[in-house]
């Protein structure tokens, strides 16, 4: 799954989110590395340093509801059935179909 980079205002950032790229201060020093997970303490420290926005992975900036996820899964299942409509579900073709379904159920796109 591709995560698009996105600047999120600090007040909307919540603990558990991860940085999509390093966070720099005005002098170009790294404050937090890419992939760092936010905590309450980190958010408070960033606010004290005057940080106003953070590069956050879109995936966890706007979590999808369970209903939205289920709709995506359903669409993925239908598309996979369509792609495999002529090769059948026997042997290796069937195995590949199952693996792709597993992939899309874990990470619906």
């Amino acid at each position: 799954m591709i995560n698009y980079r996105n600047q999120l205002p600090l007040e909307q950032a919540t603990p558990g989110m991860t940085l999509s790229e390093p966070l720099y201060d005005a002098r170009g020093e790294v404050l937090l590395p890419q992939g760092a997970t936010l905590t309450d303490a980190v958010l408070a420290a960033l606010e004290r340093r005057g940080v106003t926005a953070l590069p956050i992975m879109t995936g966890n900036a706007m979590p999808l509801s369970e209903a939205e996820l289920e709709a995506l899964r359903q669409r993925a299942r239908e598309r996979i059935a369509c792609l495999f409509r002529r090769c059948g579900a026997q042997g290796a073709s069937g195995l590949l179909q199952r693996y792709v379904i597993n992939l899309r159920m874990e990470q619906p796109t």
Partner: protein
Amino acid sequence: MTVLTIDEVIGKVHDLPSLPVVVTEMLNAIGKENVDVKTLADKVSRDQALTAKTLRLANSSFYGLQHKITTIQQAIAVIGFQSVRTLITAAAVTGSIAIDGKSSFNFPAFWRHSLATAVCARSLARHVHVDPEYAFMAGLLHDIGRLVLVTCFLEKYEKTLDCRNQSDCYLFEAEQSVLGVDHSMVGSALARHWKFPLVMEKAVASHHEPDALETGSLAAVVHVADAIAHALDLSEDPTDLVPPLSDAAWDNLGLPEARVMETLGETEIQFEEACQVLVGDTAG
């Protein structure tokens, strides 16, 4: 309408432009010792378009480099001659065949699928002791015969596409019934014309029937990568179909589930970036 003869097709293939001489030279250096890498690098560097495209590819996430590469010589030093050779070939072939006229053939989907197969074949090859660079190139070129058919036999190919859409069959089946030849045969003729290594020519020739010939693991890798690329829906073609997967080819690779899942993920990630570099200007 009469079907095409093999001689007719091969005649057209011979009229197609050759690849840049330096690309052929590099391919012929595969497996040889005492390759004059410096001379080859200097020759490539004189072709600005080819150099620019190659470097953009080298700097994509493909090789996970820490620092940006700015010359062909530097690229060879950092990622190796073999890898640079693959990138140069990819950059050269994706710009080699131009169409003259209007066609309903979906060129962007064609290149997206070719590149997805290349990236996937490269990922599979690592697990089964097949040269990853060969796998990438064979994957990239496995359907190239289609490009020859659509550019050399425009009207006949239009009928082929109509036939496929009407019966929702595989495109290679429509090619066989309308044209009398299919893209794998034409592709292997082009691989010969371009003086590609024999093992790659065979992989292109047999990617739809990997058990028909004693073609070895490269053919199996390309066959499986082709099916995976279709299954991941990377071509963005709404009418896309996953080709039947040969049990023998699948078993030949002997990949455990975890490896397949790893390849699926790796393919999707590397594909997106390679696509931005290579497909952007060949969408034609």
